[in-house]
């Protein structure tokens, strides 16, 4: 038995012994499912809190981070095993969210020791919640066009401007911002800096944005003479675009992966809805066209999971293939197809917004369907992903931007 196999056995035993019964089977165990924490968190589920504490104790909330920063000091391969074993029984990770998935890794790669020591333990323990501040109203697909101004004033930067799509900013403690520190740089990709800001700093206001689903995690965040200490600058001033690209690449692949719930779950979900709404308790789904569409969905779901596995395997073998770039496109389209089909089988029972005559599951499903329309837009639209693949993977010549 290899060391990794031995480790897997150990992890499996620990997870089976410690994961609260009530949490099993409740989660796809992705990086964004479960306890997000932070100072504004009002979570009261004792099982979830106990699971969090057990994870913190083991250092398994951030298995591959150094122990000095609250991590587990393990390898990435070991981390994969921990996450896979949690996924197997469907428990969430002990702590989830963007701090662990995105900003911790950024600080580990680009931050300095002081920043790591200041921020990482709070993230690993789920005490400090983070959100992103990238997009602006005129800097969406064209992110490098961002204009949030950061002017140096002594030991501080003074920030003025606006961010949008700052998910959960209303529930977060800190924000990681892309700012414009040199408005006169010859190219718009130059003169950008990455800064960390405490959301309690005076001058920051947050406004929630509702989506067509009726609610959303998104916010707009406004900066009015917000003073940020210079020691919260990550990396080199005016050279933040490299870090931004790394963050975005990470976001892309994590969105694709976060869609990958349990293999077969999309097919099971839509099948259950078909049985409920078409009145067919078992056997063949009576409508052969819907049945065919469901099989298409199920096949595509399986192909997507197999492709994620293949990418993961080839990355583990040291030769990451270019296919990683497709997971965002394929994953989000799969998600939309799932909800479209789930809505189709529900017929008019899927048309409820709220209230009498519709059951709660259907009402929630309809909102989720609406929410899914954003998935091909957020985190780099499908169009932007296709441009990237076209250029970087297929090597097609650039036309106009």
């Amino acid at each position, binding site marked *: 038995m290899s060391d990794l196999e031995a480790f897997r056995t150990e992890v499996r035993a620990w997870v089976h012994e410690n994961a609260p019964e009530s949490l099993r089977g409740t989660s796809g165990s992705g990086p964004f499912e479960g306890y997000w924490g932070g100072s504004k968190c009002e979570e009261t589920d004792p099982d979830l809190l106990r699971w969090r504490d057990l994870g913190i104790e083991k250092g398994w909330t951030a298995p591959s981070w150094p122990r000095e920063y609250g991590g587990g000091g393990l390898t990435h391969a070991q981390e994969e095993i921990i996450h896979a074993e949690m996924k197997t029984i469907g428990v969430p990770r002990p702590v989830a969210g963007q701090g662990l998935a995105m900003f911790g890794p950024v600080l580990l790669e680009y931050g300095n020791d002081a920043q790591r020591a200041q921020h990482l333990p709070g993230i690993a323990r789920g005490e400090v919640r983070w959100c992103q501040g990238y*997009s602006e109203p*005129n800097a*969406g*697909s*064209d992110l490098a*066009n961002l204009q949030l101004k950061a002017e140096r004033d002594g030991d501080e930067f003074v920030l003025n401007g606006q961010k*949008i*799509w700052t998910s959960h900013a209303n529930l977060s403690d800190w924000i990681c911002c892309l700012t414009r520190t040199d408005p006169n740089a010859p190219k718009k990709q130059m003169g950008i800096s990455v800064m960390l800001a405490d959301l309690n700093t005076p001058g920051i206001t947050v406004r929630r*944005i*509702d*989506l*067509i689903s*009726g609610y959303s995690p998104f916010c707009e965040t406004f900066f009015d003479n917000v003073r940020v200490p210079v020691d919260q600058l990550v990396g080199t001033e005016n050279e933040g675009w490299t870090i931004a690209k790394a963050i975005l690449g990470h976001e892309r692949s994590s969105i694709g992966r976060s869609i990958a719930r349990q293999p077969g779950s999309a097919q099971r979900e839509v099948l259950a809805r078909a049985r409920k*709404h*078409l*009145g067919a308790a078992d056997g063949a789904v009576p*409508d052969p*066209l*819907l049945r065919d569409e469901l099989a298409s969905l199920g096949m595509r779901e399986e192909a997507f999971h197999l492709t994620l596995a293949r990418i993961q395997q080839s990355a583990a073998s040291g030769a990451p293939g270019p296919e990683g770039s497709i997971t965002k496109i394929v994953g989000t389209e799969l998600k939309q197809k799932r909800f479209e089909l789930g*809505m*189709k089988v529900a*017929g*008019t029972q*899927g*048309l*409820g*917004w*709220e*209230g*009498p*005559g*519709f059951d709660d599951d259907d009402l929630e499903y*309809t909102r989720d*369907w*609406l929410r899914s*329309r*954003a998935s*091909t*837009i*957020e985190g780099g*639209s*499908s*169009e932007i992903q*296709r441009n990237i693949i076209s250029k970087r993977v297929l090597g097609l010549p650039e*036309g*106009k*931007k």
Partner: protein
Amino acid sequence: MSGHTAPSLLLNDEQKMLSKTAHEFIRDHAPASRIRTFRDSKDETGFSRELWSEMADLGWLGLQIPEQYDGLGLGFFDLCVVLEQSGRELMPEPFVSTLLLGTQALLLGGTEAQKEALLPGIAAGETLVTVGYEESGSHGDASKVSMAARKSVDGFELSGEKMQVLDGHLAGRIIVSAATSESGYTLFLLDPAQSGVTITRQSRIDGLNAAIVRLESVSVTGEAIVGELDCGGPLLQLVFDRAAVGLSAQMLGASEQAFADTIEYIKEREQFGVPIGSFQALQHRAVSVYTELALTRSVVLAAARAIDEVPDDVPRLASLAKAMASETFMHAAQEAIQMHGGIGVTDEHDIGFYIKRAQATYMTFGKPSEHRQRWAELHGY
């Protein structure tokens, strides 16, 4: 086309004027943003009574109603001209319930007394008449009728529940289907003020107003029957065909507006220093929507014309129009959101209401695959 000469698919001068007037009136008085306003204010009516009256005054509600009942005595085609425009701004006014379901049921199956009693009020914008046909266990099949009409001494006693009855919360009369024999059912005209009727308002994604209509031993006489006893099925099918065509006209209008808004947006929205409408990938996708719109316009006009002039062609053309308009509207609405980008998925922007309406209309009066199946049957395969 079954004949060798296609029916006229053009609007005559009067119809063009009607279309233009309706377009401007609706654009100015009934923007799609009203859907949000009615929803957020939890408005009890859910649409504008005043606007409905004004449209009555303009003659639009009685366009197709014969002159003897205070209408203009024009055709269904003319009605579709207005419906298309009403669709552009997703108007929540009771077009479908009253002009497509109620009026058509009365025109096709109503007794002289029923027509005299109700059609003038409809044309005047005073009376709403709707049809309840959906039940919780019917899975979209209107021929599965659980509501029962038991024979009583002087008529029938009705019990059961209809779901998502459009404008059921305000209708002056509700026509319901109720089983009257082993194999057949019958349409009955009810006054919701009658004892035993309970109305519960529902809230839908698309901004149309609907209600649950529950009947507990509601007594009616034989005079309440619309059409013939036990023959509600065939009559309802005729009503649905017309309603499907009228709804398709609304869907056409809605698709065109969503498309026009999108084209305007991508001409203006800049990224990478140029309008995003200059990106060829978006352009070619926009052209795909455009071609579907052109095809859909043709089939909607042909189906509307057939209702007035070639009744034998109505079933197949109604199915063609409904199937195609449903897919086109969904396609146009999806692309509209995607091309609007982030702003397109916010509740603040109106474009999101188009996909909600698209989903609702897709599922109403038969989804595309059901109409394709019917088309196949009508063509002998």
